[in-house]
C-alpha cells in the first residue's frame, strides 16, 4: 500500500517537473527526495535500518543501508491523513493515549504491517525516552537485532570519545548482521558530501535571515531534520544547491517569501504534520512568516573525512535537544537575534516530555530577548484532536499582541 503511495508521489512530482520544462522549486525537489526515500524503505529490495533521530544516517548510508528515524513514519502518516486510524490500532493494543502520537502512530503502523521489517534497529538516547522505548518495542516486534547509541549529555573530550567509540562499534554491528563491511574509501566520499551539504545548508540559512526573508513559512518546513536522512548522498548536495540558488535569486529580484513581510516568527520544535490552515492564516492575514525553525540550524562543525567518528559524535551531541535546557534556550535566543524574530510559536506536541517538558523555561528565556511565545496544545500528528477554531483564536490574539508592541530588533 505505502509503496504505491510513494511510487505515485514520485511519478506525480516527476511528471509535474517535466511539464515545467524540467524546472522545479526546491520544495518540490525536497518532496521528490521524500518520495524516493519512501520507495527505498518500502521496496523490499533495500536493507533497512530503523533508527532514533540522532543516528549517523550518513555512516549507515556509507555501509549501504537505507536508514531512517522512525518518527518519519508518524509524520508521513499524518501528512497523508492516515494517522488517526493507525493510532487507534496502537490505542487498542494498550499504548497510552498520553504518549507522543508520533510513537503511537509508529507502533500502530508496525502492528498493521505498514512498516517494512528492518535488518537492524539503532536506538538513540536523544532526543527522548519515548522514542527509545519505541525502538525497543519495534526490535521485539520484528525480532531484529538492536544497537543502542548512548548520546552523552556533555561534550567533553571523553564524552565525544565514548560516543565515537560506540559509532565504531555500530559499524561492526552492521557488518555482523548484514554482512556488509565498512569501506573506508566510501565512507570518506560520503563524509565529504555531508560536509559539502552542510556548508550549503549554512548558506541557505544565512540567506533566510535577510529582512525581508526570501523564505516563506513552508519552504524550510521539516527541512534539516529530514535532510539529515539524505546526508552523504549526491541528492543532498543537489537539493541544498537548489534551495541556495532559489533563495539567492529571490533576493536578487527583491522577492520575499511572503509579500510585504511584516512579522518574523520562530517555530519551536517540530511543525504540525497534518494539513492545517495555521500557516496560511499567518501569511495571508498577518503577513507573518516563519523564517526559522528550532531544528533548522547547523550546530556542528565539518567532519574529518579521514577520521569521521569524532566529528559524527560531536554532531549527535550538538543537537539543541541534548543537554541542559539552558543550552537549548541559548540556541533559541541566538536564532531570535540572527533572524530578528518578533514572536515564537511552540506547538507543545502532546506527549512530548523532552521537547515540551520545560516549555515554561523556554518561554521565560525568549522573553529575556523580547520575544513572546505562543504555547499551543497541539497533537502534531493526530489530526482528530485539532480544533481549528480554538487555535485560530489563539493565533489571532498572539498576532494582535505582536502587532501592538515594538519590534525588539528595531532601534528606537
Amino acid at each position, binding site marked *: 500500500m505505502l509503496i504505491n503511495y510513494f511510487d505515485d508521489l514520485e511519478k506525480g512530482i516527476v511528471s509535474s517537473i517535466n511539464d515545467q520544462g524540467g524546472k522545479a522549486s526546491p520544495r518540490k525537489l525536497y518532496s521528490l527526495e521524500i518520495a524516493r526515500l519512501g520507495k527505498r524503505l518500502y521496496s523490499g529490495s533495500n536493507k533497512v535500518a530503523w533508527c532514533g533521530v540522532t543516528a549517523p544516517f550518513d555512516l549507515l548510508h556509507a555501509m549501504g543501508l537505507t536508514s531512517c528515524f522512525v518518527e518519519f513514519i508518524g509524520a508521513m502518516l499524518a501528512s497523508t491523513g492516515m494517522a488517526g486510524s493507525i493510532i487507534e490500532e496502537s490505542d487498542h*493494543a*494498550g*499504548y*497510552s493515549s*498520553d*504518549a*507522543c502520537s508520533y*510513537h503511537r502512530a509508529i*507502533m500502530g503502523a508496525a502492528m498493521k504491517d505498514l512498516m517494512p521489517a528492518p535488518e537492524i534497529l539503532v*536506538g538513540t*538516547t536523544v532526543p*527522548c*525516552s*519515548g522514542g*527509545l*522505548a*519505541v525502538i*525497543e*518495542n519495534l*526490535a*521485539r516486534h520484528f525480532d531484529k537485532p*538492536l*544497537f*543502542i547509541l*548512548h548520546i*552523552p*549529555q*556533555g561534550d567533553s573530550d*571523553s564524552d565525544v570519545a*565514548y560516543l565515537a*567509540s*560506540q559509532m565504531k*562499534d555500530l559499524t561492526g554491528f552492521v557488518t555482523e548482521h548484514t554482512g556488509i563491511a565498512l569501506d573506508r574509501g566510501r565512507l570518506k566520499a560520503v563524509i565529504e558530501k555531508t560536509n559539502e551539504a552542510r556548508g550549503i545548508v549554512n548558506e541557505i540559512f544565512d540567506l533566510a535571515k535577510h529582512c525581508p526573508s526570501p523564505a516563506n513559512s513552508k519552504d524550510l518546513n521539516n527541512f534539516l531534520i529530514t535532510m539529515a536522512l539524505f546526508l552523504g548522498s549526491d541528492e543532498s548536495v543537489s537539493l541544498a544547491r537548489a534551495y541556495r540558488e532559489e533563495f539567492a535569486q529571490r533576493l536578487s529580484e527583491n522577492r520575499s517569501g511572503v509579500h510585504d513581510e511584516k512579522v518574523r516568527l520562530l517555530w519551536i520544535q517540530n511543525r504540525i504534520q497534518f494539513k492545517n490552515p495555521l500557516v496560511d492564516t499567518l501569511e495571508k492575514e498577518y503577513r507573518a512568516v516563519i523564517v526559522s525553525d528550532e531544528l533548522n540550524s547547523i550546530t556542528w562543525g565539518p567532519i574529518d573525512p579521514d577520521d569521521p567518528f569524532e566529528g559524527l559524535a560531536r554532531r549527535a551531541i550538538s543537537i539543541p535537544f541534548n543537554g*541542559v*535546557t*539552558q543550552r537549548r534556550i541559548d540556541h533559541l535566543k541566538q536564532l531570535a537575534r540572527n533572524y530578528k524574530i518578533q514572536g515564537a510559536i511552540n506547538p*507543545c506536541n*502532546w*506527549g512530548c*516530555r*523532552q521537547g*515540551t*517538558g*520545560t*516549555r*515554561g*523555561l523556554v518561554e*521565560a528565556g525568549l522573553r529575556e530577548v523580547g520575544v513572546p511565545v505562543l504555547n499551543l496544545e497541539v497533537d502534531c500528528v493526530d489530526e482528530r484532536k485539532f480544533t481549528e477554531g480554538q487555535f485560530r483564536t489563539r493565533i489571532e490574539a498572539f498576532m494582535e499582541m505582536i502587532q501592538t508592541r515594538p519590534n525588539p530588533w528595531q532601534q528606537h
Partner: protein
Amino acid sequence: MGRQTNESLGYGCAYTPLVMLRAAGYDPYRVLPLTDSHDQAGLHLHDNLCPHVKKILDRAMGNDLPVLAGMIFMNSCDAMRRLPDAWRKVREGDRTVLVDLPVIADESAVRFFAGELRRLAGVLGEWSGSPVSDDRVKECIQEHNRLADTLSGLASKVNAGAYKGGRNTLQKAYAVAATKPLPEAIRYAEDVLSSGLKEKLSGSLPAVFLFGNILPDTEAFALFEASGARIVDEDLCTGSRLIQPVRIEDGEDLYTGLSRAILGRISCARTFNHARPGEIAQTVVERARACDAKGVIFHTAKFCDPYLARLPSIRETLRKEGIPILVLEGDCTTRSIGQHRTRIEAFIEMLG
C-alpha cells in the same frame, strides 16, 4: 573514617549512587513526592510531565524541604532530565549536579558510567572540601549493604508472612532508609525486623505481585490491604529497588565495580537489555511466578513513558501466561489510589 558534614544532599532517583554521597560525608535525602505544597510546577514544566518530578519541584518551590547542601540528579528519563533545569530556575543558589546514566549495561556503558561516578566524586569533594577517598567509599558500601540486607530480610519476612499492616510497615522502613541518616535507618529496619511484625492477617487472601515506579505513601499500602490485596512481593523504585546491595568483584576497580553494580541492579523500565528487547515482560512473569502471585497490579505515575511504552508487551505476555493484570495510573498521591479502590476490590474478587 571520613569527615561527616552532618548535612544532607537531596536526590530524586533510585539510581543515585548513595554510597558516594555518604562517602563525601553527607546524608542522602530522597525528595519523595509527598507534599502539601501547591501545584506550581506547571509554571516551568508542562502539565503532561511525570507527577513524580512535578511534585519534587512543587516541594522545591514551596520550600517543603529540609536544609540541603545540594541536589543530585540522575539522567534517567526525559522528566528527570528536565527536573534540574527547573530546579536551578526556582532555587538559583542551590548546588546541583546531573549525572549521566546509560540505558544499557554493556562494557562500554559501564566504563562511561564509572567516569561519571568519578566526576561526581570530584564534585562532591569540592562541595565538602575534602576529597572522596576510595577507602571511605568501600566503607560506605559495607554500611550500605548492611542496610540493604536488613531491608531485604524485612521484605522477605513481610512477603512470606502476611502480617497485618506488614506492607505499610515495610514501606515506612523504606521511607526511613531513603530520608534518614544511615545508622538511624539501619536501627529502624533492624528493630522492625526483630519485633515490629506480630499480628497475622486473618483468612486467605489472593496473592498479588505489585510492580511499577513511584508509590511512596504508606497509606497506599494500607489501602491495598483494606481492599483485600495481599501483596507478596513488589518491584517499585520507592520500594525494593530503592536500596539495593552493591557487590563488587575482588580486584575490580572501585568505580568500575560500582558502575557495574548500579547498572546491573534490578532495573527501572528505562534500563533494558538490548540483546533481549522487551525482556521486562518476561521478568514480570518470572517475578510473579516466583512469589506464587495469582495476579499482578501495575502501578505507574501518569505520563511515565519508560513504563507506559512497555506496558502492552507486559500485558500481552502476562495474558499468554494466564496471569491477570490490573493497571493503575496515579499522580503520586493517596487520593488517586483511593479512586482506584473499587477497581482493586473487583480485581481481587476476580482473583479469589
